[in-house]
């Protein structure tokens, strides 16, 4: 087993699934000779050729739309949207078509496709390059929305997503692409969709987050550990359908919940988690559920990026507030 970064793990998953299943194809802007602007598709075109690794014109609606057609006609397309901020030109195709063909055709047409997109802040980029709008996809019935936070999960979840019979939005926290390396099994393996991972067990308070927030939450958990607060950290991994059981069980144990996401707070994914925990666990709650999130603003350019991106200090503050309630 070799140590790999998340981007290497993603690249490996693509290589292996393309080898494993000749119906898997890759398309998107610059996915060919360039290997993608983050190198996720590096080397694919050399190995699998232009008919399976397609540099597309600069047109997101047809990237998603053509992928739908490919899926209907026997392929398993993995479409790359260069940055999540540019997916909106193809949003109609996702919401009204990818997510709906199975129902519209009453079971005749499954849409086994993956739309991959780097998301979130942390690389000091230009406008539209730092968006974290998973909530828009979570509110689309028929979709599956997946966000890994480690190299190992990135590979396992991408393989599961490619093998999934329906459309999957697979969001990659670009800040973690090269954040750390870890042992990643060589072979093809699956990380289950719909299952959260408890990355740190704790008795006093539950922290739920995903993607780029996991290291932030872990740092906060270590910090309060020194103060005698034992935090449980849950990596949600799948946003839709999310693993409600792991969350509610944890809250039943701890009685306290802080949700962390970098997306704007209002009407974000955190709201649904808070709402459902409130519905199911009201009597377990020892304090109000807190949300530590990006603000309801446009992700700032590099100079102010860090002020919007939740950090462990803000999470610790929320933990304190919750513990002291």
């Amino acid at each position, binding site marked *: 087993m070799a140590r790999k970064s998340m981007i290497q793990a993603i690249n490996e998953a693509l290589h292996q699934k393309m080898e494993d299943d000749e119906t898997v*194809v890759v398309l998107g802007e610059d996915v060919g000779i360039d290997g993608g602007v983050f190198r996720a598709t590096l080397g694919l075109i050399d190995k699998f050729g232009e*008919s*399976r690794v*397609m540099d*597309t*014109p600069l*047109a997101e*609606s*047809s990237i*998603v*739309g*053509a*992928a*739908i*057609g*490919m*899926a*209907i*006609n*026997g*392929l398993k*397309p993995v479409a790359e949207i260069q940055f999540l901020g540019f997916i909106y*030109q193809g949003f*109609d*195709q996702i919401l*009204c*078509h990818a997510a709906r*063909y*199975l*129902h*519209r*055709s*009453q*079971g*005749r*047409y*499954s849409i086994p496709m993956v739309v991959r997109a780097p998301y979130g802040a942390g690389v000091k980029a230009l406008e539209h390059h730092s968006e974290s709008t998973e909530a828009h996809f979570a509110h689309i*019935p*028929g979709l*599956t929305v997946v966000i890994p936070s480690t190299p190992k999960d990135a590979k396992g979840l991408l393989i599961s997503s490619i093998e999934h*019979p*329906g459309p999957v939005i697979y969001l990659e926290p670009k800040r973690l692409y090269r954040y750390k390396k870890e042992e990643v099994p060589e072979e093809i393996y699956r990380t289950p969709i*719909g299952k959260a991972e408890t990355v740190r067990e704790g008795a006093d308070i539950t922290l739920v987050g995903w993607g780029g927030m996991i290291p932030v939450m872990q740092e906060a958990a270590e910090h309060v550990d020194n103060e005698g607060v034992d935090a449980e950290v849950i990596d949600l991994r799948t946003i839709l*359908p999310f693993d*409600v*059981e792991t969350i509610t069980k944890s809250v039943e144990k701890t009685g306290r919940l802080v949700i962390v996401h970098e997306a704007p707070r209002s009407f974000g994914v955190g709201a649904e988690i808070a709402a459902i925990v409130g519905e199911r666990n009201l009597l377990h709650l020892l304090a109000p559920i807190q949300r530590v999130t990006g603000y309801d603003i446009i992700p700032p350019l590099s100079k102010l990026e860090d002020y919007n991106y939740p950090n462990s200090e803000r999470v610790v503050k929320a933990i304190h507030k919750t513990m002291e309630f």
Partner: protein
Amino acid sequence: MKLIQILDENGKYKADDLADIKEQEIRKMYRLMILTRLWNDKAMSLQRQGRLGTLASVRGQEASNVGMALALQAGDWFVPAFREYGSLFTLGISMKNQYRYWGGDERGNYIPEDKRVLPTCITVGAHLCHAAGMAVAAKTRGEKSMILSSSGDGSTSQGDFHESLNLAGLWKLPVVFVIQNNHWAISVPVEKQTATKTLAEKAAAYAIDGLRVDGNDVFAVYKTVKERADIARNEFKPALIELVTYRMGDHTTADDATRYRKPDLLKTWEKRDPIERVKKYLMKELDWSEEKDKELVEECTKEVEQAVKEYENSDMPEPETMFDYMYNEMPWHLKEQLEEVKELTQAGGKK
């Protein structure tokens, strides 16, 4: 741009062009056009009686509908918008199911496993991208098949039209995009969609061939689409084909075209009726008679009525079926919601 025509409104025809269309095929076309019109007439009357939902009438476009679908070969795909049920019947999709669909029952949109047809697509233009993608798949596999999409004049304004045609031209995809130019997008005449004189000339922007066909001439439609389907299938050359036809009815049963359309326009187009001219041809060339015609209409009427009966006798969909096919495997939250619905309906919830 030249308008391709074989059979004119008086039943006059270009014999050379017609040579390779078999008599049997012509009879089939005629029958399918009549069937389509009868289905349509019946649907309109069902709608008026509240026995069917909002309907987009296909009256006037029967030649376009039938001609293009007949041009397909086994293995080819058909990707319709919402005003192509004449094509669907031609391809063997059941008339009953179309009643169900327009009657507000999702099950009507089910396409049997042995048909290469997509379900109705309401979002104007979106399905053209799907057609392009399907063509990629066919080409990747080296399959000898092609994709035929159909959409309206209004669809040519959409970004998706542009992106799909660009892809088809660039990647040399086995796809033919048919535009049924029926002159209207609800109340907006085609002259208010675009400044070009024709829609076919837009093909130039994608380095693909554009053709313009009399869409009320079933022979020309059939022949042109067939030729281009063959080329697409064998040579990976896409095409854009504009079928010049006319929407004789309202946009849908929810619309009232007298608000925006001068009646004399309709009269001009009535003379160009796609069914009448084939009848004239049949009379002149294929020993047809009013009597035979009446028989055929009666036979088709029976078929339509049988479909109506089956439609009206089919069970109401169960409320639980709302949750069907949302996912290949039902996730927990839908299971919970399904239980809610079951509880409510068992408690005698509102039907």
